[in-house]
């Protein structure tokens, strides 16, 4: 993964290897190799948050959050729980309606487009996977393809199978989600979102509910998507992932962005006392 200096998009082609520094390795940052055959590259869209506010009643959760994610860029959002990072993410596809500010997808205000259109353009992956337990893996994939994207039966199945193969789970197509490990379920959830061919992907603590030994498989898949040019906003507690995969890291606390920058700057040279304290806690 290229670590670009500016928020310009990284190359959509697989990048050259980046040596991992001993300190990075000590911090748990490990470069993530592709899972198998390289998948197709994506042409992601850009996302821009402009002074986004969100209040639940009198409780102000977001107090003017602004950041932009260029096409193909990967931005990791870190911060203590209750900092508003998940809320900010959920505002992007309007699972939460912002109470102020604007969010733009490829320059177009998301607040003025229909939520269903917006969500077809921006995929989301949840902490709890949220596969539909009454459907098989392949049915989980084809349901939105048929009912939302309007694909025919055969086309939906073909696209679903291709997506499953890419996450290495083609053999599990006819299983129920309950019979898959958490890591496998999350990879199906990622494939399900990807199959809709979104312009950007949102990850809301996608590995937080996984047993430790299952985390890497999911992170590796996410790193693979990043390498292939998907625009990604990743709320995560995986500092190693943020360090090695993110183009930029945003640190949020109490509803505002406290500090942002390249991973090396954030992790090795934090400026604000709050970020220093947070890193001292988690690293």
């Amino acid at each position: 993964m290229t670590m670009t200096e500016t928020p310009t998009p990284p190359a959509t082609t697989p990048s050259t290897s980046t040596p991992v520094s001993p300190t990075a390795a000590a911090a748990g940052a490990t470069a993530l190799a592709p899972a198998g055959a390289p998948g197709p590259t994506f042409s992601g869209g850009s996302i821009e948050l402009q002074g986004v506010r969100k209040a639940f009643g009198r409780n102000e959760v977001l107090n003017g959050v602004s950041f932009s994610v260029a096409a193909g860029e990967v931005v990791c959002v870190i911060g203590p729980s209750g900092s508003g990072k998940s809320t900010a993410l959920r505002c992007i596809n309007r699972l939460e309606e912002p109470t102020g500010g604007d969010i733009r997808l490829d320059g177009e205000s998301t607040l003025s487009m229909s939520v269903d259109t917006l969500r077809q353009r921006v995929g989301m992956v949840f902490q709890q996977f949220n596969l539909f337990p009454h459907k098989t893996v392949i049915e989980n994939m084809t349901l939105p393809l048929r009912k939302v994207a309007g694909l025919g039966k055969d086309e939906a199945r073909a696209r679903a199978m291709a997506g499953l193969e890419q996450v290495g789970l083609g053999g599990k197509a006819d299983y129920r989600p309950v019979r898959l490990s958490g890591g496998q379920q999350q990879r199906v959830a990622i494939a399900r979102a990807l199959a809709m061919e979104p312009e950007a992907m949102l990850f809301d603590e996608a590995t937080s509910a996984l047993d430790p030994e299952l985390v890497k498989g999911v992170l590796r898949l996410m790193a693979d998507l990043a390498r292939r040019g998907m625009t990604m906003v990743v709320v995560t507690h995986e500092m190693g992932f943020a360090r090695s995969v993110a183009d930029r890291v945003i640190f949020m606390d109490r509803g505002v962005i406290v500090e942002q920058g390249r991973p090396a700057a954030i992790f090795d040279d934090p400026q604000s006392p709050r970020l220093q304290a947070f890193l001292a806690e988690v690293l």
Partner: protein
Amino acid sequence: MDNFLQTFLDWDLISEVLPDLLTTGIKNTLLLALGASVVGFVVALPLALMGLSHRRVLRWPARVFTDVFRGLPAILTILLFGQALSPLGMSLFGPSPFPLAIVALGLITAAYTGEILRAGIQSVEKGQLEAARALGMSYGAAMRLAIVPQGIRRVIPTLVNQFIAVIKDSSLVYTLGLVAGEREIFRIGQDASVSNANLSPLVAAGLVYLLLTVPLTHVVNAIDKRLREGRTPFEEPPAALPGGPAPVPAATADDLLPLGRH
């Protein structure tokens, strides 16, 4: 003792009434119960969805309907419906009281079924709706395709229990007056009891009810057990892995692959 046996277990009377119970009786009881359950389900589903709405104009009518039909004795509802609407019923359905009885029983069971379905739908994790919506489904599509089917699955045992209750409540339809071919299990037993001044036919009717309801309670228990074991009601059990049954696989090889570098 002889007197007791003769009053309750007169085999001659029982064997005399049994054919009628097993043919006409079961047929009419099941016709009433199934018809009412279909009506009940069709009314209950919108009732449940209305009850879950954020909008008061939808929630309120559902609440009132449920409170009224759950709060009245079944026999009163059936009698009022059957009598008050009988002119209308006559012109719509002809002289048989069955259609009105099915509607009345259906509305009663709808009130209960609506609450059962609402509880089931409500028990589906919030993340399921969010995931469906996040995939671009409208609220209606998400409910129809993802949430309601899961909710219904979870309450299948309770729905079967409700069906058992309808079978029993269908006995109250006798109050609307039934001609010979329309009599259900209870009425056949009662008629034979009255004309013979002996309770044995009613005992026979009771046994026929149990013949219907007891197997159903076992079906409930079986479904309930499977649901609690985490499988969907009609799925094959997972193949046993060497070293013992393990329905949820542990980490697989590719979960465990060491991370390379790039």
